[in-house]
């Protein structure tokens, strides 16, 4: 098995996410033992944000890190466990609501591919960038 970041790199549809993780200085942490549960937005999800949104964040690593941490839970949680609870505490601090189990929806994003198990956690692929609030 590969790590979360290697898995994402091999998939080829997380270029923006990986660049953002690197810009925020979170690569090392996500390469660590974890384990983590990562809700990974695909490139199209970042592209759907209005112009300038991602660039402003990339220019400001602490602010970018905060948004990215909202996509991560401490621990390994598969879909079956996630849907058993209405919300989960993100590493950012704000809760991530689980809005529906079928189709599997995390906040206002739909999970397009769940339960990709990695060395140091699990990845759920989502179609929108989720934001705290």
């Amino acid at each position: 098995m590969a790590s979360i970041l290697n898995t994402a790199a091999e998939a080829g549809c997380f270029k923006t996410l990986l660049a953002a993780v690197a810009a925020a200085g979170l690569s090392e942490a996500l390469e660590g033992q974890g384990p983590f549960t990562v809700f990974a937005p695909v490139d199209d999800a970042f592209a759907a944000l209005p112009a300038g949104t991602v660039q402003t964040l990339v220019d400001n690593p602490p602010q970018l890190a905060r948004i990215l941490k909202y996509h991560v839970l401490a621990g390994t949680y598969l879909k079956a466990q996630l849907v058993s609870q209405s919300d989960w505490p993100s590493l950012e601090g704000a809760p991530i609501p689980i809005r529906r189990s079928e189709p599997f929806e995390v906040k206002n994003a739909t999970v397009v591919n769940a339960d990709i198990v990695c060395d140091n956690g699990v990845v759920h692929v989502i179609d929108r960038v989720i934001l705290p609030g």
Partner: protein
Amino acid sequence: MIPPSTHKYADVIHRLEAGGSMLPDTPENLEQIIGIYKAYAVPMDFYWRDLLYIAERVFLNPLPAFKYFIPKEYMDLANSYSGDNSKLRIWRGGEKAHPELVAFMKHGETISMPKILHHLWHDRINMEFAEACMQAMFWHQDMGGRFNDYLESKEYLANADRAIKAYFKGNPLMLLLYKLFPEMFIEQVRQLSYYSNLGLFWEVMAPVFFEMSDLYNEGGIKSVPEAMDFLVNGIFAVAGRPIYHHVYIGNECIEIIPKSKGFTWLYEAALPYVEAVFYRTSPFRGTKSYNAQANQVPADQADFHYGILYADVYPVGSAGIPPTLLMQDMLHFLPAYLEATYQNHGRGDEDKLIQLGITFQRSMYNVTSAVIQALRCALLYPLNDPDPEHLLANRRFFEAQMDRFLRPEARLSDIQQQNYR
């Protein structure tokens, strides 16, 4: 796909669901709001510069008699969102203080004379308005974001302590007072952090409004929803801007709130600002009095409703009341087409401040619409989502937002009519 809303403001909700604004899409509404955005942006260019000057340089000066006298360094301070060197250029214009602002500061309503005389004659930008907005944010506090919590943290107290000691180094009297009344000093620093917060917030809004005005003048914005969408895109584009508080003491920069705390323009400045200033503020002294004992002032701060979205502009329009100070500031920078509109309605020059205040109210309903649409976009679903459950979630969100305008003071019904002036 979903049944019509039965809310009192169903028409407005359906308009929001169709991608519109709370403000009806009419050519006159568009002209009014763009004109007032431009008239607002010029004094705002002063406000943000002076707010940062006070937060960063005046700091704890016990007799800040000259805090409204912005030094050249801050008049020339490059706006992060305009000018050739800005990373994200929102306004095509220059990065220094706006030329109309510079001209007004020289001549005011009277003649060119030394700054001190303009100040004493009160022929100047009413910075007191900006401070009233800052105080509203400072006082209401619990409006989302993490800024206020941080002001109570040990880390913040240590940073503030370092800044206070550095600022009063060599001043035994003030250091003694600090030792005797530490909380008083810390509370002042907290307030100064809100000066910085609001300054950084408005640094963005001034170029946004200037650009909207330029786009409108060249035919680039043709409807109220287009104006709202420009604001929505702007909110997203700068959402991640850091909110911080740095103090410069001599050559030393002390980071009271470092950028590394991860505070953002959207969560720690914009949303608290809208809540504190557009909705809540506080009852102000004027021709209208409030009797707290008779429950005319809500017991819960969250129910405060003295912001521009609820203001009865006529009794509010008295000298010395914060919104009137802003109206008077905007009066100096009205585009010719708005001047003409006011001359053709009401009592012309006689009630121009009132007409202008109502225009401002319309324009802020449009800004609030942009915030509501941005939140819907960030937290909920696209307006054309094919899933009815998602559309119902959007509906519940819009209805909850409109519930805030059910109280009789709200002006949402009024702004639906063009003859409300």
